[in-house]
């Protein structure tokens, strides 16, 4: 299926999450990504192309020197897919699995620095790099096209809050507020590994028998893991993010994340919330996603998303398998209204033709 033509695209951002494990699903996703990038370059040569890998780039415990070959095999296909367009820039966000045993572990930052160094070796022209770098949380601004920027955040660092590093948490939130204010006239998309809203497993969408009879279920529902939205530290991080956004007086257009292994487009309302949550975390693994308040699209299939920007409009398109072992195709697209009163619309555009 072909998404409707959006003329005058000045920049596109491809959102690919949790791609760090070898799987047939990942092969399909990365092959489609490379083809889409080629097509995008041919159709809109003047537009910018940004590929955002949303964390968990190397499962299970990040980059290990003693398993260099094995771990680089998880990373390389992502890099090669991003090279589908010669001028594409690829940014790899750190996820919880990239932080090895967790950001508060003394050796975890070594795993992050190692992945950063590997990307530098594999892409010496800086067409691909780990951002935020050096095991710090950012925020880092990445311009996409005139009037459109990404702000990249390492939420695993924020969750663990390793003491005495990178200026501390408060400094991060102050910088985020300042950055939002400084670019208040732009369309801004925040990106991190952990979502602000999701209907996936990390928000408790698991059945009672997943992972043992009512053990994992209760653990997630009660917020026992720091990686789940209900945990005290995760919910505190979300509160601080919302406060930092609210203090800036700016409503970002979106928040892109992975973490849950599904595809979700969610309209968000409320103080300090970006207008849209994009969860794109099913590049190599998949798990259930249910509809929550504001959900416009949810799927547990392998896939990824693309954000297109023209001088006047923004649009999201979801590419996914419709069944196991089938080629990806565009399954959902909608215009992203920026006016708060229009956020509830996100009319699903018809997908025309077939490919």
């Amino acid at each position, binding site marked *: 299926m072909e998404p409707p033509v959006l003329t005058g695209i000045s920049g596109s951002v491809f959102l690919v999450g949790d791609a760090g494990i070898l799987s047939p699903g990942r092969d399909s996703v990365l092959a489609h990504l490379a083809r889409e990038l080629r097509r995008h370059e041919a159709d809109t040569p003047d537009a910018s192309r940004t590929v955002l890998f949303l964390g968990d780039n190397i499962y299970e415990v990040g980059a290990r020197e003693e398993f260099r070959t094995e771990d680089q095999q998880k990373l390389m296909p992502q890099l090669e897919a991003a090279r589908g367009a010669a001028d594409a820039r690829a940014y790899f966000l750190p996820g919880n699995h990239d932080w090895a045993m967790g950001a508060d572990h003394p050796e975890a930052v070594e795993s992050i620095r190692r992945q950063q160094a590997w990307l530098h070796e594999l892409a010496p022209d800086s067409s691909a790099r780990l951002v935020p770098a050096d095991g710090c949380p950012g925020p880092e601004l990445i311009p996409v096209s005139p009037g459109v920027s990404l702000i990249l955040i390492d939420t695993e660092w924020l969750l663990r809050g390793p003491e005495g590093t990178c200026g501390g948490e408060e400094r991060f939130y102050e910088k985020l507020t300042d950055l939002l204010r400084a670019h208040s006239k732009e369309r801004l998309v925040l990106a991190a590994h952990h979502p602000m809203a999701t209907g996936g497993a990390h928000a408790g969408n698991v059945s009672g028998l997943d992972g043992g009879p009512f*053990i994992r279920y209760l653990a997630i529902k009660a917020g026992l893991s720091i990686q789940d939205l209900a945990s005290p530290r995760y919910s505190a991080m979300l509160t601080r993010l919302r406060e930092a956004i609210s203090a800036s007086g700016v409503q970002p257009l979106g928040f892109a994340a992975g973490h849950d292994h599904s595809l979700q487009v969610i309209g968000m309302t409320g103080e300090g919330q970006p207008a849209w949550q994009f969860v794109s975390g099913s590049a190599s693994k998949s798990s259930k996603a249910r509809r929550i308040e504001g959900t416009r699209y949810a799927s547990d299939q392998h896939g990824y998303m693309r954000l297109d920007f023209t001088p006047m409009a923004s649009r999201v398109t979801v590419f996914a398998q419709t069944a196991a072992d089938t080629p990806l195709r565009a399954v959902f697209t909608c215009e992203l209204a920026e006016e708060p009163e229009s956020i509830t619309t996100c009319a699903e555009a018809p997908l025309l033709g077939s490919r």
Partner: protein
Amino acid sequence: MSTPRSVTAGAFLAVAVFLTAPSALNAQFSGPCRVGCAATLMLDSYLVASGTAVAIGRSMGGFSRTSQGVISWGSGFVFTAGAGIALQGDGNRQRRAVYGGAIGGALGGVVGLGVAVGIGKGSAADRLSAALIGGGIGVLAGGALGAITRGSTQDPSPTPLFALRLPL
């Protein structure tokens, strides 16, 4: 956190051992605490284990490693199941402890939930956590009370409760 299957498998194994003891040993299940009691002990242990994991995990802001969850959950389970098994020489006392624990767990869960609602802890996770912690405390309190309370009639038989021989 993904709870390892080994913990689940261990719990199932423990239940299976209780419920499928050899027939010669099953004959000893003539005491007051039989299969239903064994199953209730498992439920008590499950509740204490969950309450322990919730109390420790949430006080830390959330477990950052799976092993932390496993150790917390497993230690609560083993402690409670072990305490119940240790009472096997006194069937009446064991029955009172096990069923007292279950009653205490139910009451504790309700009290925990009520406290969470009462102090305005609004999220579902907060309420569930409070109910599980209250339930776990209730099991321990009810079990302890049952264990130290004398029954109105003496058990005429010294028959052991569970036909379980641990190779220790």
